[in-house]
Every structure is written in C-alpha cells, then in structure tokens.
C-alpha cells in the first residue's frame, strides 16, 4: 500500500470518530503542554539567575588573588595556555579629584595597562581607548556627577531624585580635565595638578544601582603620582596601592582549564563559570524533577490513547477481517493502527507546543505585573525576570516523549488487530 493511501486510510477512520479522537488529542495536548510549561519554569528561573550573574562580568573573566603576603607571578601566569589578557588595575589610597571648568568629581582612579585593556575587549559607549599616556577613559556616570560646589552642597543637603543635578551635560569626549590628589585626612589638595584628555566613556553598568565614576589612566603615571604624594606628605603609607588582577581567556571553553591551572599554581581564583556550573547542577536536578512530574501527565494521557485505540480495533474487527481476507498483511494492519496513534500524538504535541509558547509568553508578560502589584512595587514590573523559558531542546524532548508514549500506547491495540482471526471477524454481525 502506498504511503499516501495509508495516510488517507488513517484520515478516513479519524474522521469517522471525530469527537472521540478530539478528546484523546485534547488529553495528549494537555499532558504534553503541562510537561513543557512546568519544565519551562525551571529553564526560566535558571536563565534569570544566569543573566543576573553575567550582567556585570564577562564570562571569560577569571579573578586571581595571591595568597597572603605573596605576590602574583605574572610571568608564570602568562605561561598558562589560552590567556587572552591580564588586566591589572591599581588604585591608590588617596582622594583623586578631577576638575573641568568649575566642576569637580572625586573619581575612582585606576591605573592600568591600556594594551591589556584593549585585549580584554573593554567596551566603550563613546569614543576610543587612549593612545598615549595623556589620554584617559572615564566611567559612564563620570560626566553626570561632575558637579559645581553649589550643586554638591545642594545634594549633600538632600534633594528629591528628580532634582539631582544633571552634571556636565555636553559631550565629555575631547575635554581636558585636571587631576589633583588629596589625602583623606587632609583639608587641602596637593598643589600639583595634571591635565588629561578624555577620549572614551565606558559602557553603562548592567546593574541599575551601580554608579560608575571610575577613571582609567595609563599605569606609567603611578611612579609620578606616588612620588608627588611622597613629596607632599613626606612618606607613603603602607598599602598605599591596591591591585586587582583579572584574567581574560581567549574563549569561553578555556575558562575551566585556565581556572584549574591557576588553582594548581596555588592562587585563589574566582570565575563566573564556576558559579554558573554550580547553578547549572542545581537546576539540572530541579528540571529533571519538573520533567518527571510532567511525564506523569503524559503517561495519564496515554491511557486515553490506549483506550481509544483499543475501542477502534474492537469496533473495526470485521473490517480488519475483510482487509486480511482480501490480502492485507498483518504488518500493514499494525502500521495503520500505529499511524493512527502516532497521528494523535503528533497533533496533540503540535498543539501542546503552540499552547505552551502562548502560556509562557503570557506568564512572562503578566506575572511581573501581578507580583509587582501584590508587593506594591512598581519597579518589579520593569525588571526583566524570565518566569518561563522554552528552549528548543525542551520542545524536542517533550515532543519525543509525547509522540513516543502515544505510539507505545497504540502498540498493544495494533498488535491485537494483527491477531484478529479472519474467520471469526467475518462472522461478526454487521
């Protein structure tokens, strides 16, 4: 029998029992949709947590800390394969004030190697990276926190959020700012001033509450700035400088090996991938649990398919007998019934996938508003929380399970159909 004719045959029989097949498809749809939606909660929460972790940290970033009273051996670290950049940022234990016209800001000055910053793919929202040591890059909020003395005094008195001064509103790129140093315990700044040109503005931090008013300056300035401090204050305090080291691997898949190599060297290492790994393990178990519960729904729906197919075989005993009498092979009879149960599974699954995506979309749109309203926080609805996420792998897994279970449910009735005795079947009353 041609495949097309087999499909036609199955279609004709389904048409004859529309309501019963519809109810069975509905049960299969509900089972499969329940599995997908339930598991999508696991995927959604995991995605939210991953995003939260990755927001402010590049996934290829590995933080390295030396042990107490030890130093990092950069040469040794450089020998680790697949390292893309080693970024060391040094800050000083002194107030660093930057001035532009009548405006001032106490920025977080960090001295670094610009070449390494470039290799680490430092992202700028505006401008470019410095090309010589007279150029600097500033944080995203640097300009808007450049206040006049009057504005600062007003802020210190306390103002509404809407009344916070806007700072320097023109473009900061190309502007010359001057730096002065002032110890925390002194009332006045040192007389020396250094002038720099702002050539770039760093990216807006992903977390809303972070205010980035840092300044990246070439590390060549460190001896001069330290020397100035020493000249004015007679001595440089212990721990005057503090250096953080971040290593960027050449690609994502090397984070694990680089982390391991650095740990083997005896350093304290932290990488986001480690944290993600722990989260992934937890969520893997969580998702397996949800899928297991969802599978029970699919198994319950399979009882419906089994009943429908058993009824179909019983009702069509005489027809099956005639088919066999005129030459239909048992294999063909079996295939026709399996196709029917598979059809129920496939239609049920397709509907389930469509419904699941709709439910998922609705949940992600509606739930933040509902939760926000319940908690009385307007901001909650603005947060990008994923309550439900349906990756293609979940669709594939649920589809395979749903169609597979439908076919297994139809297997026994189909086998029963092949075993129908022609003589007995032909004797059945019309």
């Amino acid at each position, binding site marked *: *029998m*041609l495949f*097309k*004719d087999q499909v036609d*045959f199955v279609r*004709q*029989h389904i048409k*004859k029992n529309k309501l019963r097949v519809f109810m069975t498809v509905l049960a299969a749809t509900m089972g499969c949709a329940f599995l997908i939606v339930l598991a999508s909660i696991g995927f959604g929460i995991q995605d939210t947590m991953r995003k939260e972790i990755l927001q402010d940290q590049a996934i290829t970033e590995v933080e390295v800390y030396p042990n107490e009273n030890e130093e990092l051996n950069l040469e040794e670290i450089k020998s680790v394969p697949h390292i893309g950049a080693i970024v060391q940022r040094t800050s000083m234990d002194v107030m660093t004030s930057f001035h532009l016209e009548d405006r001032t800001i106490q920025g977080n000055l960090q001295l670094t190697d610009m070449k390494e910053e470039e290799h680490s793919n430092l992202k700028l929202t505006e401008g470019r990276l410095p090309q010589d040591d007279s150029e600097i890059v500033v944080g995203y909020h640097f300009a808007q926190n450049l206040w006049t003395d009057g504005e600062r005094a007003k802020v210190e008195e306390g103002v509404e959020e809407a009344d916070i001064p806007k700072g320097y509103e023109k473009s900061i790129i190309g502007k010359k700012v001057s730096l002065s140093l002032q110890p925390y315990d002194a009332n006045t700044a040192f007389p020396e001033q250094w002038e720099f040109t702002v050539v770039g503005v760093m990216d807006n931090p992903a977390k809303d509450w972070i205010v980035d008013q840092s300044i990246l300056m070439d590390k060549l300035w460190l001896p001069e700035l330290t020397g100035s401090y020493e000249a004015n204050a007679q001595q440089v305090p212990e721990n005057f400088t503090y250096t953080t080291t971040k290593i960027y691997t050449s690609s994502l898949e090397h984070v694990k090996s680089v982390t391991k190599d650095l740990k083997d060297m005896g350093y304290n290492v932290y990488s986001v991938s480690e944290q993600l790994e722990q989260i992934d393990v937890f969520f893997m178990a969580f998702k397996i649990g949800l899928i297991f519960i969802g599978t029970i729904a699919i198994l319950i729906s399979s009882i419906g398919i089994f009943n429908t197919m058993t009824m179909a075989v019983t009702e069509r005993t*005489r*027809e099956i*007998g*005639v*088919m*066999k*009498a*005129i*030459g*239909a*092979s*048992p*294999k*063909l009879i079996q295939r026709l019934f399996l196709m029917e149960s598979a059809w129920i599974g496939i239609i049920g699954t397709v509907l389930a996938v469509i419904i699941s995506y709709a439910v998922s979309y609705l949940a992600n749109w509606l739930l933040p508003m509902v939760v926000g309203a319940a908690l009385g926080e307007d901001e909650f609805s603005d947060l990008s929380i994923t309550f439900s996420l349906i990756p293609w792998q979940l669709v594939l897994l649920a589809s395979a399970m749903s169609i597979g279970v439908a076919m297994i449910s139809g297997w026994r009735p189909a086998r029963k159909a092949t075993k129908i005795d*022609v*003589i007995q079947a*032909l004797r059945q009353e*019309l």
Partner: protein
Amino acid sequence: MIQVKQVNHTFLIGKKGKEKKVPVLKGLSFEVNKGEIVAIVGKSGSGKSTLLHTIAGFMSPEQGSITVNGQETANLNETERAAFRLNNFGFIFQNFQLMPGLTAFENVELPLKLKGISSKQRKVSVGQMMDKVGLTEVGDHYPNELSGGQQQRVSIARALITNPPILFADEPTGSLDSETEQDILLLIQNLNQTLGVTFVMITHDEEVASIAHRTFKMHDGELVKGDIR
C-alpha cells in the same frame, strides 16, 4: 490449478481442559481445474465452509497438503499467505463484507490500494470493472445506499479487480431474492466464460450449484459424491 490431498482437520470444542475433539475434515482429496466453476454443497455443519477457509488460507489444515498454482499454501506464514491471497484469490461473501465507510468505488479500489497501484491506474481499472458489473451509476454510493444485488456486484467487482485466477464464493446469493440471485449467477457464468476465472463456490442451494461444471457434496467432513456433471 488447486490440488487438495488428504486434508484432515479437527476442532476442539468445549471448556478449557475439557475440550472435545470434533473432526471436521476427514481425508479430503480432490482437484479443481483451471477455468472451472466448482460447487461444494452440503448441509450446515458438513464442513464445506471449513474446507473453503482452508483452501483460501484463512486457516491451516492439521494434516494434508493444498497446492494452488503449484504453490504449497499450507506451509506459508501469515504474511506470505496474505500476499498469496492478494495475488491469486478473490472473495465473494454471503453478506458482501463491504467496508461501510467507503463508497462502492472505494470498496472496489481497496485491493488495488493494497497492491500499491497508483491512484491514476486505479481510477481506470476500477472504472472499467464497475462498467463490467453494471455499477457505473452508483460508484459514489455507500454500501447502505445500495440494494442487496448491487452490494453483491460491488463485492464481485472487488474480488475481480486484481484479475485473480481463482475466485471463492461463500453462499454468493444467500442474502438475495430469487430474481437478483439469477442476475448474480448469470454474471458469474459470464465472467467465467469471458475472463476464464476459476470459481469455487460453497452453497446449499441446488439452483446455485446448477451453474457449476462440477459439484462436490460434503457430509460430516467427507466428500460423499463428486463430479456430478
């Protein structure tokens, strides 16, 4: 064409564990030649239906051999027997055994579908066959919209559509009135003469048996009289 040699068969009747053996076919041997109409007659319970089911391959005899067109059919497995039936046999049943959900045309078309014939070819073949059995006008009618005679014609058309060399008829006119019975018998004779199809009929009606070239009479599982004509 058909050789039946020493065929024996026993049914087990009664409750499980307390079954009684009832012999239904007792050492039957006969032959059917190509192009013949053979009638097997006998009372109810004489074993004529069991004999037909055995020759047609619906069941295997306990003993003996059945050879059709040189092929020993008793040893074939179920799939092989189904394929053999599809290619060699046609069936006409007393209560027509048409598919209620299919039209007359689709019922006739069914064996061709089982053979994997394309829909284009099927349309031509079925059209010709419907014409041959006088059913052109009712091709799109469902079985319950047809008279008994028309249903039996559909059944005959379905049996002949694959051009089988042998056609089995189990009480072919058993559900028909006498006028329609005559029509069907004439049709069978006509098809036998024009197409050269071999007919093996089971009947208890002497009039039906009268169109046969040879008649075998069965009693208690044995042939008591053969080759009447």
